Every structure is written in C-alpha cells, then in structure tokens.
C-alpha cells in the first residue's frame, strides 16, 4: 500500500500530466476549424496548478515510492524554475501559433509532458527513473522541434535532434548499466554509500559515459554540434523551452549524478568541456547573422559558464550552478519570446538585417530585448551579471584561476556579438519591410514575467540565493 504522502511528493507531475491528457482528450472534440485557444488556457491552468502543487509539496520533504523520488529544496527549486519556463512558453505560444497557422492541439500537451519529464528528472534519485524522465522530456521536445511541418528546416531540426538525442541517451543508459555493475544499485544515495568504501575502474567509465549523455542535453562542447541547426529550425517558443528547460533539468541531473554520489573522475571532463564550450560557443556566435543561430551558440557558451561552476564544486560551486541555471532561464526564455514575436509568419524575419531600425519602429520591444541581451552579456542590474559573478567567484574560491581567466576572456568576446544585435536595432537604418505588430496580451505577460525575474535576480538576489544555497546543501547531504 502506497501512502498518500507519496502522491503529494509527485503532485506537480501528476497535476500537469492530467492537464496534458485533458488537452489530448479535448482536442478531437473541438470543431476542427475552430479556435484552439481553449487548449492553451487549459495548459496555462495546468502550469499554474503545477506551481500551486509545488507550493503544497514544499511542506513535505522526503522520499517517496520506495526511494525513487526525493522532494527536497533542490527539487523544489528546479520545479519552480521549470514551471515558470513552461508558463512563459505557453503564454508566448498563444499568439505565435495563430500567426504561424499551426492548429495542432497536441502542441500544448507536449509542452506539458516535456515539463513533467523535466520536473521528474530533478526529483528522481533512481538512475532508471531519471532515464525514463529524460526520455519523457526528450521525446516531447523531439516532436515539438518539428512542429513547423511546412518548413523543411523544422523537419531537419526534429530529425537531427531525435537521431543525435537518442544516440546520446544510449550513452547515458550505458553509464547507468555500468554503475549498476560496479555498485549493485541504481539509487543515487546508495551509490554514494557504496562508493565511500570501494573504488572500481568501471565507475570512472560510467561517469564519463553519463557525462556524454547529459553533455548532449545541455549542449556543452564537444557534444554541441546539433545545437545551431536544431535551434534554427524549431519553432521559436519551443527553442525558448529547449534552451532553458531541458538544460536546467539535465544540469540538475548532472549535479545529482556527480555530487550526490560523490563519484570520482569528473573534474577534468568538466574542466575541458567548460573551456571548450565557452570558447566554441562564443567564437561561433561571432559570425552568425541569424538571431536564432546566434542565440544557439550563446547557449553553448552559457553551458560552458555553468560547467565552470561544476568544476568549482563544493557548496559554493553547486549553488552557483543552480543560481546560474535559474537566471539563464529567465533571460533566455524572455529573449526567445521576443524573437518568436518578431519572426512573423513562417519565421521569415530572424536575421540581424530584419532587426535593423527596430529601436525606432518599436522602441518598447527593442528596449526589452536590449535588457535581455545586456543580461546575457552580464552587465549589472540584471540576473546575468550576478550569475556570472557568482560562478567566477566560486571558481576562484576553488583556485581555478586558469578556467576563470578563460571564462573572463570569453565574456569579453561575447560582448561583441550581443552588442551587434543592439547595434542593428538602434544604430542601423531599417532596410527591410519586416512588420512590427503590437505586443499581444499573452506575450506581454510572458515577457513581463521574464523581465521582472531578470531584474529581480539582478537587484535583489538574496531570496533566490538563499534558496540556491539551501538546495545545494540538500543535494550533498
């Protein structure tokens, strides 16, 4: 008999899945030509209910379902981050779907299922369950990436993501199998107990394999090759989701796998991957003219900064990574919401040229996008600044001088390409006919949420900072 409290410990996942299924059921019942907005509203309600469920869950920390799931400060933190990302994505999709003439109702359901998978990734402490959760979120995003089915690049995006993604999850699964072979268990915390007494070479191999699998999900170099193509082809709001949600969740899993188990042998893997991601991401972004591709490379670079925090380890590094994941999510999902709005029917307007003169055509959108870009650069009053500050401060506390300097040089390089977008918006004369529509209500709320979050994290980070530290402490306890 499973006690009720166990169900409360997976309440957000339950609530959101139920809403996702309701959308699937409601979709065929609705008239085929009719408005699908109601489905979006169900999705919205589902996300809000999920947030409420998380709040309820926060009262009952502990393990559930025979130690497969653990609710602690760590999982709660990531649940909130993921649900907020889903909220922004759902809100910014309302208008996007109409403009793109995408009528499929499963779109919203898939976003919710993806969110369920991601949430479960952060609360699962059983490697097999982590794998299942990873698959739930991955398969949903594979499909979502191909949702602009009339566009060839969207199909390419979906296929590429699917093939490479399943390849990568296989690596992860191999890693899990080897851990099981070496320690006789797949429970993260039991693995930790076993590893304190025995060391086997197989564990090193397992760590490396799992790092490959998760490195793919977070788009860190050298597993990043898919990122620009997939981001370019996928629908813009979905990219907003892909570049933040699965990333945050995969980083959460990586934190659990590396630090909660006390696994050995990850340091140089992380170090090299961090240095490579930052460098490849930033240098690749320098020459991009497509804003989505530019943000794709930037997302690789940000994965690198986050891995710097991993390399720093200890509580400071872990909480820096958690904080960074949250603030990166806030600024990137907001930026993509605006990119989605500006892209127009068929995503025709996504190059820098199309952004020329935006500062005059639509000062408000330009100003908001500027704030997100400033945050991505890491300039004060924004979350990006604090996050970067925290990461590098943690790295120096662990005496990672070399990695810090690589990171700093990279942030200087990064200034240039973000600045380029700002330059096009404000300093170039418009040359295209790209129309600018007024901001619809849903998008307005979505952008406002991410904007407020970005500035809140940049001016009054105390609260989130304390939460991140508590989450880090819970993780390694």
């Amino acid at each position, binding site marked *: 008999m499973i006690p009720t409290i166990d169900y409360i410990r997976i309440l957000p996942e339950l609530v959101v899945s139920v809403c996702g299924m309701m959308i699937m059921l409601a979709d065929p019942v609705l008239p085929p030509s009719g408005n699908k907005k109601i489905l979006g509203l169900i999705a919205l309600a589902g996300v809000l209910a999920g947030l409420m469920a998380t709040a309820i869950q926060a009262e009952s920390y502990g393990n559930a379902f025979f130690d497969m799931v653990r609710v602690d400060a760590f999982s709660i933190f990531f649940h909130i981050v993921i649900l907020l990302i889903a909220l922004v994505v759902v809100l910014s999709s309302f208008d996007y779907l109409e403009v793109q003439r995408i009528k499929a109702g499963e779109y919203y359901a898939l976003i919710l299922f993806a969110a369920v998978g991601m949430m479960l990734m952060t609360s699962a402490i059983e490697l097999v369950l982590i794998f299942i959760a990873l698959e739930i979120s991955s398969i949903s995003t594979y499909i979502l990436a191909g949702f602009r089915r009339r566009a060839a690049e969207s199909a390419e995006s979906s296929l590429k993501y699917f093939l490479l993604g399943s390849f990568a999850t296989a690596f992860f699964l191999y890693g899990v199998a080897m851990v099981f072979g070496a320690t006789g268990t797949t429970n993260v915390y039991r693995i930790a107990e076993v590893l304190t007494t025995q060391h086997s070479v197989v564990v090193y191999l397992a760590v490396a394999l799992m790092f490959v699998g998760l490195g793919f999900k977070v788009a860190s170099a050298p597993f990043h090759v898919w990122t620009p193509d997939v981001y370019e082809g996928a629908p813009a709001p979905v990219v907003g989701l892909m570049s933040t949600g699965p990333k945050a969740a995969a980083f959460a899993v990586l934190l659990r796998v590396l630090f909660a188990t006390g696994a050995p042998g990850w340091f140089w893997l992380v170090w090299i991957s961090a240095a490579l991601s930052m460098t490849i991401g930033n240098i690749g972004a320098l020459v991009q003219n497509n804003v989505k591709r530019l943000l794709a490379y930037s997302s690789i670079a940000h994965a690198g900064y986050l891995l710097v925090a991993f390399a720093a380890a200890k509580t400071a590094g872990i909480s820096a990574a958690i904080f960074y994941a949250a603030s990166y999510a806030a600024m990137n999902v907001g930026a993509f919401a605006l990119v989605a709005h500006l892209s127009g029917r068929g995503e025709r307007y996504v190059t820098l040229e199309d952004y020329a003169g935006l500062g005059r055509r639509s000062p408000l959108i330009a100003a908001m996008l500027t704030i997100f870009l*400033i945050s991505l650069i890491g300039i004060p009053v924004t979350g990006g600044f604090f996050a970067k500050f925290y990461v590098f401060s943690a790295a120096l506390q662990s005496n990672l001088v070399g990695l810090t300097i690589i990171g700093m040089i990279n942030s200087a390089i990064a200034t240039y390409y973000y600045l380029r977008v700002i330059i096009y918006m404000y300093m170039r004369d418009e040359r295209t006919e790209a129309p600018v529509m007024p901001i619809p209500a849903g998008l307005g709320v979505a952008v406002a949420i991410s904007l407020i979050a970005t500035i809140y994290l940049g001016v009054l980070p105390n609260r989130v900072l304390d939460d991140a530290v508590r989450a880090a402490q819970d993780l390694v306890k």
Partner: protein
Amino acid sequence: MNSYLLTILLLLPLVGALVLLPLRNRDQHRLIRQVSLAIGLIEFVLSFIPVYSIPPGSSGLKLEVFVPWIPHWNINYHVGVDGISIFLIHLITLLTPIGVLASWSEIKHQVKEFHILLFLLEVGVIGVFISLDLFFFFFWWEFGLIPLALLIGIWGHGRRIYAAVKFMLFTMGGSIFMLVAILWLYAHTGSFDIVALQRMVESGQLSLSFNTEKWLFLGFLVAFAVKLPMFPLHTWLPDAHTEAPTAGSADLAGVLLKLGAYGIIRICLPLFPNASHAAAPAIGVLSVIAIIYGALVAMVQPNLKRLVAYSSISHMGFVTLGLFSFTLIGFQGAVYVLLAHGLTSSALFVLCGMLYERRHTYEISQFGGLATPMPKYASLFLFTALGAIGLPLLCGFVGEFLVLAGSFQTQPGWAVWGATGVIFSACYLLWAYQRVFYGKITHPENRELPDLNHREQWVMVTMCALILWLGIHATFFLRRYEVSCQAILQQASPNVGTGATGTKQSQALNQPYRR
C-alpha cells in the same frame, strides 16, 4: 536627511529617466528637454550639500551609509564621500544639465531616449564615485558602459558604430581584469569592503606576497588605465570622442576619464602600496610619453574635435605623473587637473559642437577668419583654450603647476619632460585657434555664420566663470580635499619592513600644502 543624501543623489537621475518614459517623442520634444533640464539642475543643486558637509581641513569619509545588501556574499550598500569624490560628483551633476542645454538643438531624433540615457550615465558615474564596496563599485562601473556606447552609436557622427564598439570592447576588456582581481581579493579575504580591506592591508592582517600584490595591482590598473586612458591603451579615445554627440563627448572627457583616475586613487594606491611604488617608475615613463605624444599628435590633427580628444590624453598624463609622484603637492595637483580638465575639455567639446551645428564639419581647413562673423564665440573659445593651456589665473595652471612641483621632488627627470607638455599644449591650441579664427575668410559659407544665441551664451559663460573661479580661488578646493589626499598618501606608503626607505622618504615629502 544626511544619511539619505547620497542615496537621493544616486537615485534622482533614475527617477528623472522614469519621469521621461511616458512622454512622447512625436510632439513633446520641448517638454522632454525642459523636464530633463529641471531634474539635472535639481541634482546639481543637491550636490552642493556634500561639498558643504565637508568643512575645509576635515578628514575621513562623510555621509557614510552602510546597509547590508546581499548578506550571503557580504556585499553591502556602503557609500560615502571624501574631499576628492565630492568635487568629481559635482562635475557630473554640472555636466548633465550642460549636456542637455548643449544638445538642445543638436539632437533631433529619439529625443526621449537620448535624455534617458544621459540620466542613466549620470547614475552610473555617481554610483562609482560614492561606492566604498568593491562589488558596488564594479556594478556601477559596468552599468555606465551601455548608456555611453548607445549615446555614441545612435546619435554620433560618421563612424559612430565603429567608435561605439571600440569603446565598449576596450572598456569591457579592461574591466574583466578588474573583476578577476576583485574576486580574488574576495576569495581570500571574504570582504568586498574597500575600507575594511584597506584596514586589513594597513594592519598587516592581509599580507600579500609582492608577486600577488603586483598581479592584483595590474588587474585593477588595466581597467583604470583603459578608462583614463594611459598611453598604450588610449586608442579608443580619439574615435569615441570624435564621433560622439556633443553631450556624450563632454561627459566622456569631463567625467568618464576621471573614473579611471578615481579608481587609482581609491583602490590601487591604498590597497596595493608596495606594488604602486614599484610601478611608479614605469608609470612615470608612460605618463611622460602620454603628455608629449598626446600633444604632438594633437598638433597635427586636421579635425578640431580630434585635436581636443588627443589633448585629453596629454592632460591625463599629468594626472598619472602627479599621482605616482607620491608627494602631497603632486597628488593634490593631479586631482586639480582632473577638475580643471573636466571643465575645459568639456567646454571645448561643447564649443566644437556649436560649430558643427552651424557648419556640419570639424575640419580646421574649412574654417578661417571666424572671429569676424562670430566675435562672441571667438572670445569664449579663446578663454576656454587659455584655461586648457594653463594660463595663470585660469584653472589649468594650478593643477599642472602643482603636479610638476610635486613630481620634481621625487622624479625631477620626468618633471622636466612633463613640463614640455605645457608648452606643447599652447602650441597646438593656439595654432588651431589661429587657423580657425584669424586670417581672411576663405570659405564664403563662413561669412554669414550666426553668432551664439542666448542659450549657447549662457552655457559658455557659466563654464568660463567656473574656469576662472578654479583659477583664482584654488584654495577653496585644495583645502577641502587636502586631508583626504594626505590620508590616501599615508595609506599608499609602503608597508614597514618591506620598503622602509620609501616610507621615510615619502613622509618627509608629505608636508602640507602651504597657503
């Protein structure tokens, strides 16, 4: 009231930016300018209070506020002013309304955004000048970059985008080294507080090996040297100054360059005394190069605005020469050069802007004989130029004289070379003056140029009056920041045991300035 004053001073321009937000660009240009001017003037008047809260000869930090901001990292909202920072704050609060007035008819599009950015820049600069916490200092240091880059890039002339990007990349590149140094200090002391860190250095609680100290010093110095700019890192300056709109150039030359010097005064010297002393010879050489090189390059500029820009490099050479002479006179002189140069160079940029509005060019060869159609302009230009040259009784003289007097005591060789800069500055400015204003009118379109209107006259008369006041009543300023300078010099004397000879020498030279 007093404990809130600096906070009000910091936030008022931000309020100004918010007030401007709902105004419309389409039909409310005049209102936008009036509101901006009003807020700028209120801020200017408010900034008198700190000046009078520091009676002459007083020491220590005033109007200090200490509120925990991010307790988790031990970051605090720690602000305060001393005799040096109050006048620098005054400079920016003066130049903001001047900038609004100077761009009254120059800026024609996106007027609202222009003034908002001007206010944001003011917030950033004031933030740096009042910070006593390294994190907070860095926060505002970076904050000011974007508004200025946008000011240059959106409303500038010619190669504005190139100039804006170059400015941004240089300063970002520099400040990243500072960030590493700040983080290193934090990782090893757990504190961002400048005052606390300084005490740790003084009491020997934080004893850095000379090697570490050297690297930290260099980390900070690179950021400040880019901003100042010091000789090999100056190349962004001529572009940025030349392409920026008038208000941007005035702010840039008037205040932003001073941030670099202020950083050296507030952070480099007190926190890394040994490294500072060790670096003094090298910096002395670079200062002399900057003085002479800046002046020579200025002399051959065909572009009037570029000429003024290069003259800034030369003047900033005097600042570093004075600071690293480690004498009280030299130190006071360096701070005085900051104030004087802030006035004269921004006034010269405003004058250049007025000429550009009439003729749409800065090329000296396009002018000649302007004194005939524009007599008022010509005389005000001459007055300002003489101030910049350092004619006795005008502001430039006091600072440069003190710097040379101070550095002569410790580094006579450089002082001699530096002194040639005074002559060179007379050469390039007077020669340019001759080519622009005297002789026959060679270009017919210059014949009918209108002289200054009332607004322009008021702007320039105010600036000239201040230039004169700084020249005549120097003690008003010197007495107010003398003790602060002395305190910093005391902190900058090398630690006992590591450089005992230096301590003795610099104490002997730290005789107060006699009035």
